[in-house]
């Protein structure tokens, strides 16, 4: 019996997005990344025709020394935690980060209440320290982000950064400035595909180009809701393949933060669960690899050993 053909052709594919601008394009990056482009479900079809671009890892750099990170994670950054530029350099040079994501935790009113000037300085320092493309991620307090992120966007003008996140009830200010400064935008939704679609429509209605958007569907860690993020990722990909242009963007996930919060990643002194030093990085890597099955294109991560595991996985599948 001949093996039947499986249909390969879909109406849509994931948009290809290039982040970072080199001197040629008016920036100072020494490398860029291009993501997206998948033309099928993950692992369906043939690798050469369907898989799209290789997913990338954006390593987190905080604008303030973390106070609540588990020891195993903190130990990796003890020497650079107070210095975002050195921290970013370490991630790129030692840990092989494809991108850096500056997370402006420190500007949050409850976590340091740093000013726009502080955030601009961190942005400039990191841009000067590393050549990879940069994502700039607000503190997720709307009022504060609306004050700080426009200044950050402006400071990085010309670098073609990825800025976020904008949400259904707070998108105008940041979308406008991201558009003006020529960056890419992250649209966020709380594990709800209809809201995700709605934000993309609101943002594009303001004139923001759909092909410069990356979606963030919210992330659940392994054991703590990853199945919701997983299924929303798969549904986004199916909508994309069916030709829905309002969902055809690449997807970013926040794996580092979510996975290092959970008990299994950080609890020490439970030998029957294996060494905490193994478990934390494995939990983070597994959360990432799971979401890669659902179609993630950019993964935000924290632990170098987890990054190495995920890179090794990505290289086996996408090379």
């Amino acid at each position: 019996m001949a093996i039947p053909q499986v249909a390969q052709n879909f109406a849509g594919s994931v948009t290809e997005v290039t982040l970072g601008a080199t001197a040629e394009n008016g920036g100072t990056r020494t490398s860029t990344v291009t993501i997206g482009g998948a033309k099928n479900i993950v692992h369906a079809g043939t690798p050469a025709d369907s898989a799209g671009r290789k997913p990338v890892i954006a390593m987190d750099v905080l604008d303030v020394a973390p106070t609540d990170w588990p020891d195993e994670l903190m130990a990796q950054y003890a020497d650079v935690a107070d210095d975002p530029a050195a921290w970013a350099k370490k991630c790129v040079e030692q840990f092989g980060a494809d991108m850096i994501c500056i997370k402006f935790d420190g500007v949050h009113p409850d976590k340091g209440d740093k000013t726009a000037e502080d955030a601009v300085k961190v942005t400039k320092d990191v841009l000067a320290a590393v050549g990879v493309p940069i994502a700039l991620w607000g503190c997720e307090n709307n009022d504060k982000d609306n004050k700080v992120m426009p200044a950050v966007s402006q400071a990085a003008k010309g670098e073609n950064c990825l800025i976020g996140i904008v949400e259904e009830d707070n998108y105008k200010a940041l979308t406008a400035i991201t558009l003006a400064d020529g960056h890419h935008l992250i649209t966020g939704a709380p594990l709800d595909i209809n809201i995700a679609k709605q934000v993309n429509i609101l943002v594009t209605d303001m004139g923001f180009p759909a092909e410069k958007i990356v979606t963030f569907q919210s992330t659940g860690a392994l054991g703590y809701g990853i199945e919701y993020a997983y299924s929303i990722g798969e549904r986004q990909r199916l909508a994309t393949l069916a030709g829905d242009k309002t969902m055809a963007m690449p997807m970013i996930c926040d794996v580092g933060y979510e996975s290092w919060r959970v008990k299994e990643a950080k609890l020490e002194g439970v030998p029957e669960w294996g060494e905490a030093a193994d478990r934390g990085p494995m939990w983070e890597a597994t959360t990432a690899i799971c979401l890669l099955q659902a179609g993630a294109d950019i993964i935000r991560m924290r632990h170098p050993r987890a990054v190495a595991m995920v890179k090794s996985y990505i290289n086996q599948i996408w090379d």
Partner: protein
Amino acid sequence: MALTGLDIFKLLPKTNCKKCGMPTCLAFAMQLAQKRAELDACPEVSEESKNTLAAAAAPPMKLVKFGTGETEVQVGQETAMFRHEEKFHNPSVLAPTIYDDLTDDQLAARIQAVNSLQFERVGEQIGIKAVTIINKSGAADTFASVATKVAASVKLALILCSENPGAIKAALGSTASQVPLIAAATLENVDKMAAIAKENKCPIVAKGASLEDLETLTEKIKAAGVEDIVLSLDTDSLKENLYSLSQMRTLALKKAFRPLGYPSLTALIGGDDDSQIAATSLICKYSGIVVLDTVNPAVYLTLLTVIMNIYSDPQKPVQVEPKLYSIGETTENSPVIFTTNFSLTYYTVESDVEASRVPCHILVVDTEGTSVLTAYSGDKLNDKAVADAITKSGIEDIVSHKKLIIPGYVAVMSGKLEEATGWETMVGPRESSMLPKYLQEVWG
């Protein structure tokens, strides 16, 4: 794939002889399609049509069982490509390796390590369900003796791994009653292996380098009278495995292609512990059995959690029991927080309370497994529900204060809640992640 009445009609004699009790063959076909009649009622139908109809009624992917009694496991019979369409039915089985060239001490240690790969997490027992015994020594009697030892010291289903029919036969001598999965039949040994599987009533793995080879193998094995088959692609490439697994699942489910309508086994052999984490992709994307080369508990806790999550029912919000949970060394002065019984919400709050190191009572309100905001907008979280939870939990006898921390998102409930309960409400943070800071500042 279910046949329509018209499909069935085409297979009937079309003589309208009425022996089935129906006026016409078409009427009988319609009854059959709706499962209101049995095919046996028609004495005239051809053998060929009977077989076609029986095959169409079978599930697109075969259910395969191995092990016996308490150790029996089942894989396959999946019906969906995506978990949001329909719950995946039979969770992937993890099966660590044991090689037959170990010394007695090494073997004992390995068995002990394998036996410890059982865990409790979020109130559920999870663990490995099988073990893979590998004939690395090449000797049939060594393999048989190690298989006998392992079989006697584990409560797990067995996978016997050798391409030498003599070794499999020898190992089955003492283990056949435990219904091991035989791994594997290849193009070279298929006749002998299939005969052994048939004789011992064991399921068998078909191992081939391509889908075409696998198809050839399953047809031969079936012809030898063995129905329970597991597919395994003979490659070290994870990429090739994943693309083939997706293709096989699609062919079975969407094309009703019977020769590949079986569950799959994939082995990640060699490499360090970190490399085994790639098994995550095999669990998500369609491998029913995953053979792993490590016994590091951290790897298993992680991968078993993947199985737990990916095979969970997408229609059913996972719930925790609505009651009082005390975290840490609580006293009568410890703070009381309420949240909903959506397990994701609860475990997030629990995790953040633990992180705060402030002992707390968490009062779980029954909101039918919905999150705080959803429950509030659906009126499943209201002053009455919280008052009920307070009464049922007996918290008033446990703490000496009457202060209740409420989720920041439902701050508007405060007034009514105070009236309904007589407790003073304190508005906590909106995001659970801010709980440690809040608790340390307000109660620390």
